[in-house]
C-alpha cells in the first residue's frame, strides 16, 4: 500500500488514462471535486453510485456527474435503508469490472457512506484481493462549516446499528466483547454506541494528525465526557489520513484482546474506515458495524478542499500486519 498527497490540480495527470472509475454522488459538493478533474473519456468505464432513498437531497450532483461522463457511465443505485440492496447493486455494478485485475480500478471514496464504502472494499477484496486499486480521497477544508470546534457536528443520534454486509466476523457466543470505536466528531454518538453494546473491553481511537493533540483532531473535543462515563475505556490514537499507519494501530488493538469477540465501529475519516476494512478483510474474526445516524448535517457538512490523498492498494498481505 502506498500513500501520496497531491494538489487537486495534479490529480488527473497522476492518475493518467485507462481502467475503471467508481465515484459517489452525495449531498456534499465534495462529491464533484475529484470526478470533474477527469475528462469524460479518460476511463474505459465509470460507475456512479448514488443513494436512491435520498437522491433529492443531492442537489443535482448525480445529474452533474452523469452529464459530465455521458455515455461512458452507468449508475449503481444504493439505499442506506437497505444494506442488501446496496450490496447487490455494488456487486452487480463493479464485480464484473473488478474480476480482471489487470485493469486498474480507481475509486473516489470521498463521499460514500462508511457502510457502502466498506461493502465496496469487500467486493474489491473478494473479486481481486484489492490488487491494482487506487483510492482517491478529497480532504475537506472544513467540516460542519462555520461552527466552533466544540459545536461541530456531521450527524446526530444513533438509530439502527447493524453489522456491515460482508463483515459479519466470527463471533463466539462464549466470548466477551471488545468494542473498538474510531471516534468521530460527535462524542455523544460514541457514548450511545458503547452503551448499546455494553462491551467488556472498550478501545476508543482518536484521530491525531500531529505528534501532539490538537483541537483540529477529529474526535478530540468531548473526549473527557466519554471517558468520565466509560472510565475503563482504553484510548489509542491513529492517523486519520494515513490508512497504512491506521491499519497497524487498529490491528494492534485487535490483537490486544486475544480470545475476545472483536467489533470495530469506524466513525472517523473515510481513510481510517478503509484501514478498518482492510483489517477485517485480513482477519475474519473481526466484525464491522455501522451506526446509522438519526440526522445528518446536510446543509453544512463540509467545504471541499484542494488536496487529494492517493492510496494505491496492491493486494494487501497479512505479513504487513
Amino acid at each position, binding site marked *: 500500500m502506498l500513500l501520496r498527497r497531491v494538489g487537486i490540480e495534479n490529480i488527473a495527470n497522476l492518475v493518467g488514462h485507462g481502467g475503471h472509475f467508481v465515484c459517489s454522488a452525495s449531498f456534499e459538493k465534495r462529491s464533484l471535486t475529484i470526478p470533474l478533474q477527469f475528462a469524460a473519456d479518460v476511463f474505459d468505464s465509470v460507475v456512479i453510485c448514488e443513494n436512491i432513498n435520498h437522491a433529492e437531497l443531492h442537489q443535482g450532483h448525480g445529474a452533474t456527474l452523469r452529464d459530465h461522463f455521458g455515455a461512458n457511465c452507468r449508475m449503481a443505485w444504493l439505499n442506506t435503508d437497505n444494506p442488501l440492496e446496496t450490496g447487490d447493486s455494488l456487486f452487480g455494478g463493479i464485480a464484473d469490472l473488478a474480476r480482471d485485475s489487470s485493469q486498474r480500478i480507481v475509486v473516489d471514496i470521498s463521499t460514500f457512506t462508511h457502510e457502502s464504502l466498506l461493502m465496496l472494499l469487500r467486493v474489491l477484496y473478494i473479486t481481486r484481493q484489492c490488487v491494482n486499486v487506487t483510492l482517491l480521497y478529497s480532504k475537506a477544508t472544513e467540516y460542519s462549516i462555520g461552527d466552533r470546534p466544540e459545536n461541530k457536528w456531521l450527524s446526530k443520534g444513533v438509530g439502527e*446499528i447493524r453489522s456491515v454486509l460482508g463483515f*459479519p466476523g466470527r463471533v463466539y457466543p462464549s466470548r466477551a466483547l471488545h468494542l473498538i470505536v474510531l471516534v468521530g466528531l460527535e462524542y455523544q454518538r460514541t457514548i450511545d454506541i458503547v452503551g448499546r453494546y455494553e462491551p467488556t473491553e472498550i478501545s476508543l481511537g482518536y484521530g491525531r494528525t500531529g505528534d501532539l493533540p490538537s483541537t483540529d483532531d477529529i474526535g478530540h473535543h468531548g473526549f473527557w465526557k466519554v471517558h*468520565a*462515563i466509560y472510565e475503563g475505556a482504553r484510548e489509542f490514537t491513529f492517523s486519520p489520513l494515513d490508512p497504512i499507519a491506521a491499519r497497524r494501530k487498529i490491528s494492534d488493538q485487535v490483537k490486544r484482546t486475544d480470545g475476545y469477540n472483536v467489533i470495530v465501529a469506524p466513525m472517523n475519516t473515510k481513510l481510517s474506515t478503509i484501514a478498518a476494512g482492510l483489517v477485517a478483510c485480513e482477519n475474519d474474526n473481526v466484525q464491522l458495524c455501522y451506526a446509522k445516524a*438519526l440526522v445528518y448535517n446536510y446543509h453544512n457538512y463540509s467545504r471541499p478542499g484542494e488536496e487529494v490523498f492517493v492510496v494505491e492498494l496492491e493486494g494487501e498481505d497479512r505479513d504487513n500486519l
Partner: protein
Amino acid sequence: MEKATDSRNPFAVRTPEDLSANETLGLFVDVFTDFFKIREPGHTILNGARGTGKSMMFRYLQPDCQRMLRHAALSQLPYLGVLVSVKNTYPNITELQRLVDSYANALLNEHFLAMFVACRLFVTLAQNIGHLSAMERRELLTFYRRGFLGRLRRAGATNLRDGLPERASSVDILKTMATCCDELYNDVVVYLKNLSFQAKLLPYTGALCGYLDLLVPLVEDLRSLSFIPHGPVYLLVDDGDYLNEIQTRILNSWISTRTSASISIKVSTALNYKSFYTLSRQRIDSPHDYSEVNMNDIYTSSKGKYLGRVEEIVRKRLELSGIERTPRDFFPPDEAQEDEINRIGAEIKAAWKSEGRGHRPSDDVVRYARPKYIAGLKGTRKAGSSYSYAGFEQLVHVSSGVVRFFLDAAALMYSEEVARSQTNHIIAIRPTIQDQVLRQQSEELMFGELDKMFSDQSAAGSFAAGHGSDDLKWKLHNLLKLLGGIFHQKLISNDSERRVFSVALSDEPDSELRSLFRLGVRFGYFQETTIGNKDGTGRTPLYVLTRRLAPYFFLDPTGFAGYLFVTSDKLREGLANPDQALRRIKKAGVGKVFDEGQLHLFE
C-alpha cells in the same frame, strides 16, 4: 475525618455482565418486591427504558451471585440463571436478511439462536460448577457423550468427534460443550458470509437444532444430574429488542410452548420488542403465556420509590469508593436559592387562611413555592433561566425514572469536579457544576445544534419536502417545543395547577400524530402511560414529557405533576409554527386556549 477517596469515578458505567458476584451484591439494590415475578418460575417479559437496571437484575439472578447470597452449593439453588446477552449485531447479523421469505429463515435462525443459548448455558455451568466428585464427573461425562453429542449428531452435526480424555475435568467437559456450540453457531456465520453478495441461496449442509428437539431435552437431562439445580433454568435474554423479527418470533414460539417448568424465559426489552407473534402467527398474551413487568409504570406512578432507590444506589456507590457522604450531602443544592424558596413557602403558609387553594398549607407550599420562585427570576431569555437544578432530589427528578441518566450525569459532574479541584479527594459536587452539566445534557437532548437548524424555517422546509422521516423528526421537534413552552407558561401562571408535564388527547388522534408521539416515546422524549378519559368511559394515553428537558424549558422537575387534556386539532395547529402558537398562549393564558370551547391557537 474523611477516608481517602478512591481515584475511580464512583458513577462511571460498569457493565453488570462484567461485575464480580461480590461487586454485584455490593451494588445491587433489591427491587424484587416490585418485580417479584422475575425471580418466580414462569416466562416474563420485562420492559423498561435503557438504563433502568434490567441487566443488573439479571446479573443478580446468575448462579455465582445466588450461591454467594444464599451460602449454597450450585445444586441447592432453586433455579439456574443463564444470561443470554443479545448484542446489536449478534446473533442478528445483516446477512440473515438474505433468508427472509425463504423456508430457511425460521430453520436457520432457530438453530442459530439455539446454539447461542446452549453455548451460554454451558459457559455458565463451567463458571459455576466447582469441584465435582469422581462419580459426579462420570455423570457429566456420560451426559456429554449420550445427551449432548448424541443429540447434536442426530441433528446433523455428524462431524462432531468425542476428543475428550476419560480423565477430563468437569470444567473441561463443560467448556468442550460450549466450544462445540460456538463452532456450530459459526458454521451458520460462514454459510451466511457466502451470501453477503449473493442473492440466490446456497445449499446449507450443517446441523439444524431447535428448542423442542434439542434445548428442552438437553436441559431436562442436565436437571436430572445430581449436582445441577433441579428447579427450572431461567434463560435471561437481555436486550431482546436486538433480535431480528424472525428471531423474536422464534423466541415467542418457545415462550408459547409452556415449558416453563423446565425452562423459564425472561426477556428484557427497551420498549422496542419487534413482535408478539409466534412462528405460526399466534399472538402470545399476558398473563396467559407470560407475565409482563413494566419498570417505567412503577417508576412513574409510585411516589417516592424511585427517589429512594436512586438514593440507595448512590449511597452504595459512594461507600464502595470510600466517600463517607450521604447522597444529599454529596450533591448539595444551591443554598441561596433554597433559602429563598423556603422564604416564599413561609409567606404562602402565612397567607393560606385567606388566600389558600389546597386542603392544607403544606399542599400550597409544595405546589406554588418553587414555581413562584422560578416565575420571579428575570433572566436574559425568560423567567427561570437562572434557576439552579442542583441538589440530589432535583437531579433524581431530572433523571426521569432512568437510573443510567442519573449516573451518566453524575459521572460527568464528578469528572468536572476533579478537573476543577485538581484533586481526587472529592467530598461534594459544587452546585454550579451540577447545574451546568444538567443544562448541557438537556440542550443536547433537544437535538443541540439541530434545534438551531430546525428553527431556520427554510432548512426545515427542505427537510419537510425532501424526506419523510426527517419531516417527522422536524414535527417531533416542534411538538416538544410546543409542549415545553406550554408547560413553562403554565408554571409561571397564576393557575391552581402549575406543574404540568403531561398531555392526554381528549379525542382520537390521526395516524401522523400517533406516529409522532410513538417516535417521541422511542427516542425517550415521552413516557407513555394511560389515564381515564374525560367521559369516564375508558382510558386514554397520557404522554409524560421527560424531565430531562426541564432545564431546557425552565420547568420545575420536582414531585408529581398534573396533565392537560388537549384536542388533536389544537396540537396540529401548534405543530406548524410552535413559536407563533406559544406567543398566542402567552397572551391568552394556557387555561383559555386549552379549555373546551375556548380560543384556537391562532385566533
